[in-house]
């Protein structure tokens, strides 16, 4: 019988610890498919963050490094500078990339480090139990914004793609979503491009993926997908925010 659908080679055959309906799993698969398609698993070093995906080192088949909270772009810089022939990617949540690691993120972008950053925006701190994140939208209830995020008290969300597009060093920034088949296909294309850019020496490429956290949002998986469409995409519009890949070729 011909197999028409299989686990990508770059995704290890192990159970993951992600909650049912969490889109971390979908995004892992997309990355692994790209590593397979570009045939780069054997030359890739992944850097996982502190957050729900902290154990991604057990899930991806390539060599993996677990970084301190927020420091993945600096760790990736060290790997890439030490071995420029390796493909280096980071996989980071919003607390990791947009709060504690903002400095490392912005400066890796400004230096146009030739790395690929996959940024999982689920508008909350998943691993620690659903606290307010830098991307929590106004009015959103979390454990530490129990009355809804009040911008007068707790300020405004950070829109990473918009912000990084304004940094000269950034080569490619796109926001995609994991809520539906068409969006997932779009996300796959963006991730592939972010890796191809690195292979072509184009430089810092970041893909933000709007992702769900049904557990901490207190929603069923399908309601969580619906929330992305109803609440998040209007606040965080999808699209390419910057792309210099044509100019520099």
């Amino acid at each position, binding site marked *: 019988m011909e197999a028409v659908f299989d686990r990508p080679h770059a995704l290890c055959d192990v159970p993951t610890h992600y909650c049912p309906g969490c889109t971390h799993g979908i995004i892992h698969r997309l990355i692994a498919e790209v590593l397979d398609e570009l045939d780069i698993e054997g030359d890739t070093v992944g850097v996982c963050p502190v957050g729900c995906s902290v154990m991604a080192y*057990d899930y991806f088949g390539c060599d993996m*490094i677990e970084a301190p909270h927020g*420091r993945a772009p600096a760790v*990736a810089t*060290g790997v890439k500078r030490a071995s420029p022939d*390796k493909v280096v990617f980071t996989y980071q949540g919003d607390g990791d990339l947009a709060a504690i690691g903002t400095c490392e993120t912005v400066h890796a972008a400004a230096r146009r480090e030739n790395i690929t950053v996959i940024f999982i925006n689920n508008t909350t701190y998943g691993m620690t139990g659903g606290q307010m994140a830098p991307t929590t939208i106004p009015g959103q209830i979390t454990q530490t914004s129990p009355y809804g995020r009040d911008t007068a008290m707790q300020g405004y969300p950070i829109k990473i793609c918009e912000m990084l597009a304004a940094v000269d060093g950034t080569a490619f920034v796109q926001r995609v979503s994991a809520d539906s088949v068409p969006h997932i296909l779009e996300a796959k294309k963006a991730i592939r491009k972010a890796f191809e850019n690195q292979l072509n020496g184009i430089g810092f490429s970041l893909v933000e993926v709007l992702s769900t956290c049904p557990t901490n949002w207190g929603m069923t998986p399908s309601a969580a997908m619906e929330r992305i469409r109803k609440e998040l995409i209007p606040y965080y519009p999808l699209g390419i925010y910057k792309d210099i890949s044509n100019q520099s070729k």
Partner: protein
Amino acid sequence: MERLLMKGNEALAEAAIRAGCKCFFGYPITPQTEISAYFAKNMPKRNGVFLQAESEIAAVNMVLGASAAGVRAMTSSSSPGISLKSEGISYLAASDLPCVIVNVQRGGPGLGGIQPSQSDYFQAVKAAGHGDFHLIVYAPASVQETVDMTYLAFENADRYRMPVMILSDGLLGQMMEPVSFPDTEIKLPEKEWACTGHKHRRTHNIINSLYLQPDMLEKSVNDRFMRYERVKSECTLSEEYLCSDADIVVTAFGASARIARSAVDSARKKGIRAGLFRPKTLYPFPETELKASCRNASAVLCTEMNMGQMVYDIRLILENTLPVEFYGRTGGNIPSPEDILTQIEKMNRRIKGGALSGSSI
């Protein structure tokens, strides 16, 4: 072997490059400045990487990445910057990653000052970051020793897969002395654990410090502490000077040992049997050697450029068998040999008058 007149900081950087350091990551701070500047100038010409990071936090994590990729990597800073690096140092230790970290100490706490100090002894030896771990800590006392210890630091970092610190200070970093660089050829060890891409020839390598099962975490810490036992028996270094008949043993490390040595010489000229014990590694601490140096002593004087830090270790090791007193200056002030001589003389008078005594060991 050629002799060159070099500043401590520059000699350290040159030694690191010769010892095979491939990547240097740093953030500007006085008084370690010349180290970064030397790398900035020389790494591009010598096939190495120099990168000025956005912070000490980023710099130490770049070291983590480069070390995980299997190359010799280092960072340098001065006291306030080392505080920022401590998170990364803990992760490096916990991930069994070799690297070299240089602290050219300045006065603290807080922003402190930019003059020489030794007030980061506790930080280097006891609390370089959170969790159960140690660094090998070298305390050079001359420019030549800075060079020699830099070679040793890279070698032992790789041998024991652990971060190594060179605890220098503003005085040693800035002083110029003649040095020579050993022309031994550097053999870089194979690192089969490194993240170099598996090429489908092996299973994936993972560099990690997370263990959610207490038993697994305990085992990883225990394994590391077994390695520290080897470090203790193979890496401990010290120097004793005129200790065999010494009545008063002065203990000092790094720059303050230079000053203490002159004071010991002056005391001898005045007929006081003084000696100097100098640990060259602060971790592992030369415990047996210290006890041996104090075999004929009536009292110990510990001098440091801080408010008294190593003195706690001296007292612990001597287990109250001898009176151990402390003399120090801090804030960037350097004690003079006369200051220390005065302390030795006072101590001598009290010993002779019977006011200072302890059982011998």
